[in-house]
């Protein structure tokens, strides 16, 4: 039952799921990778965005349209959360450390409780023309929803990469990641820059959340499945690299898919997280960071 063809398809599906992993990790790549904020709540934000997409979807909106609509409120939500974090921790100068992690932990906690109170514990899905259908290429069938994810992931990666390298604001964000002091000399306010960047990160999480509910059903506690995966991708990528995030997502997706096809799905998590541990132990700066 093992064939070259099957292996090839496993790689293809791995790449598609990998795109999904990358897309949901981009926001974290900014928040944690560039801004050094211990954003444990990122996965919870994804689930929150997935539910908002569901909410708009129940009015008949396509999830992708809904994603575009929630980007703005999520941006401001992110700005707000960062401001709060800044006032409470960074402003006092001291390294937030354990308390910073606990803060975002608490935020994730509250998001989860809020979702289960508001939407109940049943899992939620959306419907769209591209969900439940597939593209047939000869004998091979590729779900349209994964193709949609592929396109969004690439567009988001390219968009963020261009934004960070070509615009003044984007370059300021990258500068603040390296040296807040140097940024001040150039005349930009590091706090406002970080605040803006965190807004962008949260907006990216909003799009990731829409993809989340396009790919699979969501429930309030789903963030626990994705905390590890998103951090895994960001660390593999090397902090703050957008194209690295895409490649890292693909690597994770393909490895999971290959392990699943060759050794059984039970072992897939161990292998993926084993890889993460290995990277952390040997090359903590990530695979794609100079």
């Amino acid at each position: 039952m093992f064939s070259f063809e099957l292996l090839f398809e496993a790689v293809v599906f791995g790449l598609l799921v990998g795109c999904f992993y990358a897309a949901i990790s981009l926001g974290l790549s900014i928040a944690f990778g560039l801004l050094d904020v211990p954003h444990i709540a990122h996965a919870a934000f994804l689930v929150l965005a997935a539910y908002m997409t569901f909410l708009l979807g129940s009015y008949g909106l396509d999830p992708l349209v809904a994603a575009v609509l929630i980007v703005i409120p999520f941006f401001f939500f992110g700005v707000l959360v960062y401001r709060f974090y800044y006032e409470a921790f960074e402003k006092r100068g001291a390294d937030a450390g354990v308390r910073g992690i606990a803060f975002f932990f608490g935020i994730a906690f509250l998001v989860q409780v809020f979702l289960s109170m508001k939407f109940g514990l049943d899992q939620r899905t959306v419907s769209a023309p591209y969900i439940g259908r597939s593209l047939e290429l000869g004998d091979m069938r590729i779900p349209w929803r994964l193709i949609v994810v592929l396109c969004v992931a690439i567009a988001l990666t390219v968009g963020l990469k261009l934004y960070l390298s070509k615009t003044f604001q984007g370059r300021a964000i990258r500068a603040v990641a390296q040296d807040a002091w140097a940024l001040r000399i150039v005349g930009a306010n590091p706090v406002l820059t970080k605040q803006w960047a965190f807004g962008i990160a949260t907006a990216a999480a909003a799009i990731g959340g829409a993809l989340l509910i396009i790919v699979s059903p969501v429930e309030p506690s789903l963030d626990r499945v994705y905390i590890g995966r998103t951090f895994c991708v960001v660390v593999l990528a090397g902090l703050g690299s957008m194209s690295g995030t895409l490649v890292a997502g693909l690597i994770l997706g393909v490895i999971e898919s290959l392990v699943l096809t060759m050794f059984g799905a039970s072992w897939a998590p161990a292998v993926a997280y084993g890889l993460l541990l290995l990277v952390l132990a040997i090359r903590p700066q990530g695979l794609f960071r100079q």
Partner: protein
Amino acid sequence: MKRGTIPFWVFAALLPAAAYGLPILGMNEYYFYISYIVLQYVVLATAWNILGGYAGYVNFGTGAFFGAGAYAALVVMLLFEAPLVVQIAVAALVGALMGLGAGLLTLRLKGIFFSIATIAVAIIIETFVLNWRFVGGATGVQIIRGPVTYGFETHTRMLFFVMSVLAVASLVIARYIETSWLGRGLQALRDAEVAAECSGVPTLRLKLIACAVSGALMAAAGAPLPLYSSFVEPHSVFSLNYSVMALSMAVIGGMARWWGPALGAVLIASSQQFAAFASPEFHLLIVGLLLIFVVIAAPGGLVGVIQWVGNWRVSRKEINRSASVVK
């Protein structure tokens, strides 16, 4: 002798004695069940704090250590019909080795990288247990409890006594670490790791000790679980909930002192038992809000609040000490 040493040891001796004596006073069986859970969280939160509070390394793998302890106990129970004391010892050993291993692999990582690594370790361990048919794999194992240990009327009372001993042991250890050279070194490395290292603190060794001790206590807390619930199954045992709870309890209780996590554990775990019938979600909501409030507004947790209230005593003592030094 530091202030409070004698009351502490009196308390440490009295708690297990009371745990043994209470049934004779005719206390309702139910309280032993919930007290067991509360004390289990006292151990978990205290253990978490040794690494998280003192050394500043946030461990998200509490459930993995706890679960490994439960499964280690289960294995020696199934293989050798070992008594509970042996089960706990084996579990603690496994937990310590796991802590050492995880520490060696991850402790060179700073801050949140370490936390991510602990998530990874937790998932890998859970995956191994899931695929380990001897302990039932994903289906879990039902245990048939033997006769009750001599000297106890029910399993629950015995387990409650055992857990109270574990709780006291964890508090004694935490208190020792806090007040000894270990505590100051951990505190220094938490504040500024490189500076601590350059001031002569063997940071890696200290962190490994903290990791091993913390892991051993967490695993020991899990060891009596197979007997308590008589059914062990990976998903509930390795639950991330244990990490969530241990962290919340330690942070809310106060990470700076050994009794902070215990205080947090007693408050949160017992209120959880009482909220079980009212609104469990409401309880979670309160815990979440409290967590955020504490990290922002009261970084010392409940301990900090209590110390702030009793501040005048401290300052008076401070004055006395300077006065005596002047003499």
